[in-house]
């Protein structure tokens, strides 16, 4: 787990990733518009925009949803995770253009309010196959909007990581809405075996990767101490932890990370204060535990981010008997300094 972790100079890479997103989006739109004009030259500009951006949005949504489980299953994908935010915001913008043009095209011609028309032009809410598919698209767009609007770290702090993460997990619901939006909408008008296959395969791949990662993680969460002495739980022997790395262990149903560095041992919470990244899969760099997701740092001895940062995580007491490491399952208040165990 994370053993081939590399110190990547993330920031110089960030611009490069953004450039790749822009090039990808541009090429996609160009290809889509080119093929449509060649095969269906009578398509109106509005229809072309609606379709080009609708399909772009769903394609980007697939990529966004793949990055999470892929980087959980293989650390080589971690650099993509680091830049996922901009991909997500691009996806929202594409969906917004699609949604806005659809509303203009289909609902502003009458004399009712366009949003009122969106909800009332089809009232078969009790039907499955005639369900107003645009309403599903609308709710998906609202979820994507809330996510894009709160994507900045300012909101992460303001909302608290717990609420923020809950909000951002709504993307799975948005994905289900979008799938139904397409299956009940576009596909009902122009049934295409091709689109049905692509979207079904996409769903199977995304869902099984997420579940594979989830099941793998819950197996880890179920581990319990093999030996408990006077309330201290046996973790492992000293030589089972590589230098500057950690062993992840479960106490009181939550993960902690026991780091070995500079001939010392310290235990801290495994959960990064930023977005909950797995600190125990990171590495000690310049004396600081460095989160593998976006690089937040913590001092192993007190769980505090080095100044000027103010993040704090819980620390845990350790005990060494001969070559064996024991941890006290009761965590100390976030940022509490504990004298590291000398080796």
């Amino acid at each position, binding site marked *: 787990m994370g053993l081939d972790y590399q110190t990547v100079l993330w920031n110089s890479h960030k611009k490069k990733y953004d450039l790749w997103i822009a090039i990808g989006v541009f090429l996609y739109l160009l290809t889509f518009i080119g093929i449509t004009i060649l095969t269906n030259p009578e398509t109106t500009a509005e*229809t072309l925009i609606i379709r080009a951006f609708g399909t772009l949005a769903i394609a980007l949504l697939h990529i966004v949803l793949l990055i999470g489980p892929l980087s959980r299953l293989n650390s080589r994908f971690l650099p993509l995770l680091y830049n996922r935010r901009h991909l997500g915001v691009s996806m929202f913008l594409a969906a917004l253009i699609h949604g806005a043009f659809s509303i203009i095209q289909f609902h502003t011609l009458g004399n009712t309010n366009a949003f009122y028309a969106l909800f009332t032009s089809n009232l078969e809410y009790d039907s499955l196959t005639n369900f107003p598919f645009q309403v599903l698209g609308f709710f998906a767009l609202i979820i994507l909007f809330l996510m894009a609007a709160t994507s900045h770290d300012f909101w992460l702090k303001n909302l608290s990581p717990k609420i923020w993460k809950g909000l951002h997990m709504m993307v*799975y619901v948005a994905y289900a809405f979008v799938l*139904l939006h397409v299956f009940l909408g576009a596909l009902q008008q122009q049934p295409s075996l091709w689109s049905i296959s692509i979207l079904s395969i996409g769903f199977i791949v995304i*869902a099984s990767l997420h579940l594979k990662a989830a099941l793998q993680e819950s197996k880890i969460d179920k581990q319990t101490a093999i030996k408990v002495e006077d309330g201290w739980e046996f973790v492992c022997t000293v030589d089972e932890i590589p230098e500057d790395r950690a062993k992840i262990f479960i106490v009181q149903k939550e993960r902690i990370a026991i780091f070995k560095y500079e001939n010392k041992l310290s235990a801290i919470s495994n959960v990064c204060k930023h977005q909950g990244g797995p600190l125990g899969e990171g590495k000690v760099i310049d004396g600081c535990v460095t989160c593998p997701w976006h690089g937040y740092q913590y001092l192993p001895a007190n769980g505090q981010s080095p100044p000027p940062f103010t993040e704090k995580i819980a620390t845990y007491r350790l005990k060494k008997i001969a070559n064996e490491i024991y941890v006290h399952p009761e965590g100390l208040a976030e940022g509490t300094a504990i004298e590291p165990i000398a080796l």
Partner: protein
Amino acid sequence: MNTRQRKKHKIIWLLLLVIVPILLVFTIVNLKEPLFTHNNALGVVKGEAKQIMLENETFTVLLDPKNTDGNLQIFLKKSLESPAPLVYAVSKDMPKDSYIGTLTAKGKYDFKINSTTTSVKIYDAIKKEELLNIPLSWD
């Protein structure tokens, strides 16, 4: 993620893995416009001459029983507002209108319809709105 978030993530995906395929299969099974056109809309037609059923700025609709490609021809002369209006054959014998095709762009469309068809409907499925209902006379 902490343990609770991981659990929530797992439950969401287990639910999606069950619910989404069921809904998708339902929508496919119930596709109003099957991946292939309705068989009961096809049939042999008697009659001779080509007859104009409708002629206006946008459409010319002809009945041409001799044409082997299709006895109903729709010429779409101008792009429509609706991106992909659907064409249905309406018949008293059938409880439900039969979907016979989609008009995707300007051009000529051939359809084979049964001689019991009393009218042809052009329908915008997005707005749920009938654009046109063309009565057919077979003699």
